[in-house]
């Protein structure tokens, strides 16, 4: 009886194990990217067109920009598609990949409760607005996860001359998670936060939050793409990866990005054509 039981168990294992291996042979590349590109639905819109044209499937691992760069450094991705130019240039300078290409931009916005207890609505100077939040000690939820948005936010605090380290745990709250989770937290505590417009437009649990500050040129949000270096990572699928990079910055790919709209609003504005700088 035991034997019979074991045979059945082994058979079941073998069947599921075989099924698990079925998907492996397909032609694919791995792209390390950010939660903002995934959560906004851009990839779901873009990738089918590329796969249809080239037969190459794209596996997107969407994490924060900091983690995405780490994945690429450790050779676990073929292409890096993120949004923090200084970090990207550092990545290229260290010989991990490149050249880097501009892909598209949108902007960051400061969102907060309708009642706006810090009184920042409509301010044009984002640093001044954030200083106001700090001086009124209104809850501000930070990503706190070394992502592109988090890095941008810290730059803005620096401009505002606010020491967030000292305030952490009081009015300044680091969620240590992705953009969506951070928006959920901000909606939950009716606090302020900085978000990219793409995620905001596609985000459904806004609660009482709305856009309060936008339009400052410091809120510009540039996305860049680059192939991981074959020299640094011999396992990189350089040819397939390059064809993805080429397509994204091609006329075709750029039009595809421009075509992506949510509720009639364009989420990303293609601006490829500049290399390196």
């Amino acid at each position, binding site marked *: *009886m*035991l034997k019979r*039981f074991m045979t059945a*168990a*082994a058979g*079941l*294992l073998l069947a*599921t*194990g075989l*099924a*698990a*291996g079925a*998907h*492996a042979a397909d032609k694919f590349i*791995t792209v390390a990217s950010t*939660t903002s590109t995934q*959560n906004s639905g851009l*990839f*779901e819109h873009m990738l089918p067109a590329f796969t249809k044209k080239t037969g190459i499937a794209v*596996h*997107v*691992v*969407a994490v924060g920009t900091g983690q995405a760069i780490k994945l690429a450094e*450790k*050779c*676990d991705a073929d292409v890096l598609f993120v949004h923090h130019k200084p970090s990207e240039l550092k990545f290229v300078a260290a010989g991990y990949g490149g050249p880097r290409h501009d892909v598209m931009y949108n902007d960051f916005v400061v969102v907060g409760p309708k009642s706006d207890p810090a009184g920042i609505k409509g301010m044009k100077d984002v640093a001044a607005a954030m200083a106001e939040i700090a001086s009124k000690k209104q809850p501000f939820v930070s990503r706190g996860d070394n992502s592109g948005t988090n890095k941008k936010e810290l730059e803005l605090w620096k401009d505002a001359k606010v020491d967030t380290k000292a305030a952490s745990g009081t009015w300044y709250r680091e969620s240590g*998670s*992705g*953009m*969506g*989770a951070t*928006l*959920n937290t901000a*909606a939950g505590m009716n606090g302020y936060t900085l978000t990219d417009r793409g995620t905001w437009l*596609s*985000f*459904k*649990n*806004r609660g009482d939050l709305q856009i309060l500050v936008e339009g400052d040129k410091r809120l510009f949000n540039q996305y860049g793409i680059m192939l991981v270096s074959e020299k640094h*990572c011999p*396992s990189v699928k350089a040819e397939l990866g390059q064809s993805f990079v080429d397509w994204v910055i091609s006329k075709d790919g750029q039009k595809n990005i421009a075509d992506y709209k949510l509720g009639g609003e364009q989420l990303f504005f293609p601006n490829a054509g500049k290399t390196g700088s």
Partner: protein
Amino acid sequence: MNDLLQAFGQALRLLTSLDASLLEIIALSLRVSLTAVGLAALFGLPLGAAIALFRFPGRRTAVVLLNAMMGLPPVVVGLVIYLLLSRSGPLGVLGLLFTPTAMIVAQFVLVLPIVAALTRQSMEDLWHEYEEQLRSLGSTPARAIPTLLWDGRFTLLTAILAGFGRASAEVGAVMIVGGNIDHVTRMMTTAIALETSKGDLPLALGLGFVLLTLTIAVNGAAELVRRWSKGWTG
């Protein structure tokens, strides 16, 4: 309350529409978790029984460690397996990162201690009860293992179900080693995490209800097997 009702409606819609991408996610979840649990049972049952029946130096420490490992944090297991499977890690050449196989390995590591530790306790109790009798029949601990495993099969089934519970519910490990890649490594729990981060709470909770239904179905199937085998052995 409104959100909960909405989620419940969402779950019903999901279950009745049998959306292709949902079926894909369900199939992957079952494949990964059941394979991990199956492997954990294959290794965990004999391992637990051996620790219960054999006397060796450091056995007490082994028991404590095994019990403690039931509390392995999924995130930490995910991270360690990521570092092992990473292209720049020792097992990188296998190219297993961000595949279902990587997720199976992670869940196997999480489930093995649960199955082994619960087996160890149940086998030890049975051995205390039947040791004299088995020894008088000329049995040694090694030869008693299959007998005792069979005798304790219903308790062991519960141990395996506890392991399945851990596997099907965890998100920390599979998120890191699987990458939550659409159509490749997206499971029920990682899909729920994703929808939550999109702020689509009704859909996230709806998926949660679907996962719960799945868990109940698996446990129901196990109960049927138990009844069937009980009737069968008389």
